């Protein structure tokens, strides 16, 4: 059995006095896709953001418990948060390319992180990354045009490329396809599915069918608690928990 990539133990999370997560414990396997589902306000995005300490920026936010990446506590004082976020990248709901060229969007991370010494090396990274993000064939002839000229789906794949360019180990995705049309969504899903071979992916989605299609394992959150965490095929054919069943079959609320 694979060791876990991310191990979360008995984690509570608070926004000031309000508790958003209650004793969440789960292990995320490497090179797999883990989907987090649940109604709005259930804590799934909070949980996702706690995996690379994105919540640190929120005043009054506080975490109890333990989140380990390859066995290392990411909330310990010795953890370099910048390095952590390079290892654990994030893709957001709204694509947010920088207002610069396609090339520079992808090259940005490697440049500021000092990952490359020579221009030719950077060219290689940009091409390799854009290929990995399934975007190269569509934009190879206009690398120096503005990223803003791309379609919404292309912009989102560019953001994925930008995240991949710093060679992360884990990708966190918060509703990465919710603002896209079905074809662009299918391309993103296909991309996510392929990326699984190399990366550990955790995806938050409101789209249950998307969770069913792309993920290996699914966690169902309700009111800040992880109600069920199982293989995706188990969750969508015969979930063990009644609350999970009610939610995914649409008997909720």
């Amino acid at each position: 059995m694979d060791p876990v990539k991310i191990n979360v133990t008995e984690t509570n999370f608070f926004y000031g006095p309000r508790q958003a997560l209650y004793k969440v414990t789960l292990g995320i396997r490497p090179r797999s896709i883990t989907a987090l589902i649940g109604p709005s306000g259930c804590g799934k995005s909070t949980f996702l953001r706690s995996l690379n300490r994105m919540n640190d920026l929120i005043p009054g936010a506080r975490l109890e418990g333990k989140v380990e990446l390859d066995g290392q506590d990411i909330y310990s004082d010795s953890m370099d948060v910048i390095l952590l976020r390079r290892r654990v990248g994030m893709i957001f709901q709204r694509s947010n390319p920088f207002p610069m060229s396609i090339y520079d969007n992808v090259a940005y991370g490697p440049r500021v992180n000092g990952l490359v010494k020579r221009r030719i090396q950077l060219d290689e990274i940009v091409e390799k990354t854009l290929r990995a993000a399934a975007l190269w064939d569509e934009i190879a002839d206009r690398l120096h045009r503005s990223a803003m000229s791309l379609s919404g789906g292309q912009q989102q794949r560019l953001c994925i490329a930008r995240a991949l360019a710093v060679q992360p180990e884990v990708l966190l995705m918060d509703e990465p396809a919710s603002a896209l049309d079905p074809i662009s969504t299918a391309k993103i899903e296909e991309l996510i599915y392929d990326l699984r071979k190399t990366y550990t992916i955790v995806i938050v989605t409101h789209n249950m069918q998307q969770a069913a299609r792309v993920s290996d394992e699914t966690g169902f959150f309700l009111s800040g608690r992880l109600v069920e965490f199982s293989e995706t095929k188990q969750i969508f054919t015969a979930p063990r928990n009644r609350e999970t069943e009610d939610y995914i079959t649409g008997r909720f609320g």
Partner: protein
Amino acid sequence: MPDRQHTSKHYEQQLRELKDKLLLMSHKAELMIADSIRALVDRRPTLAEEVIGRDDEVDRLEIEIDNLCYQILALEQPVARDLRFIATALKIVKDLERIGDIAVNIAERAIELIQEPELKRLVDLPIMADAAQKILKESLDAFVNSDTELAEKVILNDNIVDHLYEQIFRELLTYMLEDPRSISRAIKLIFIAKHLERVGDHSANIAEMVVFLVRGQDIRHGTRLDRR
């Protein structure tokens, strides 16, 4: 079906319609078997003809149920228990349709047998018919009430029907050995017994699907693909 209702009323209503159609179809199939046996035992050819005529309704329901299932699959993308319900519907509709066909076969044999003198007074065959109808009814009750205990009982009791078939077969064999003129009628009675034995098998299939529907557990062919 779970007690809680779907947020989508339209979806809820489609699932309800599917269940109602299945109940109607099972009721019709059950009645066809009962009447085909009654036609034989009471020697009533008109009742047998009527049973044969009723098969069209069961066939029509099969098509309606299939179409409704495909429609729900395509438009609602059911998951979990709803998905298992659709899968169950698609399977038991086939069993119910076959039970209707079996009733027709029994009715056809009955019409032929009624035209000849009685081979013997039918004793074991009505007993077997009762046993087969009992487990058919129980399998359908198990489906209606999501009753897995009753479903498991049906699966076990299918053996009783199988044993009765063997008993009837042996008895009719002795008739045929004693008097070759009885062969034609005895064979027809053996066919009927075999048909009833098949009703038991279809009932057991339905019962197995009830266990799958309720527990998400496949118990067919003696396998227990237990949920971990």
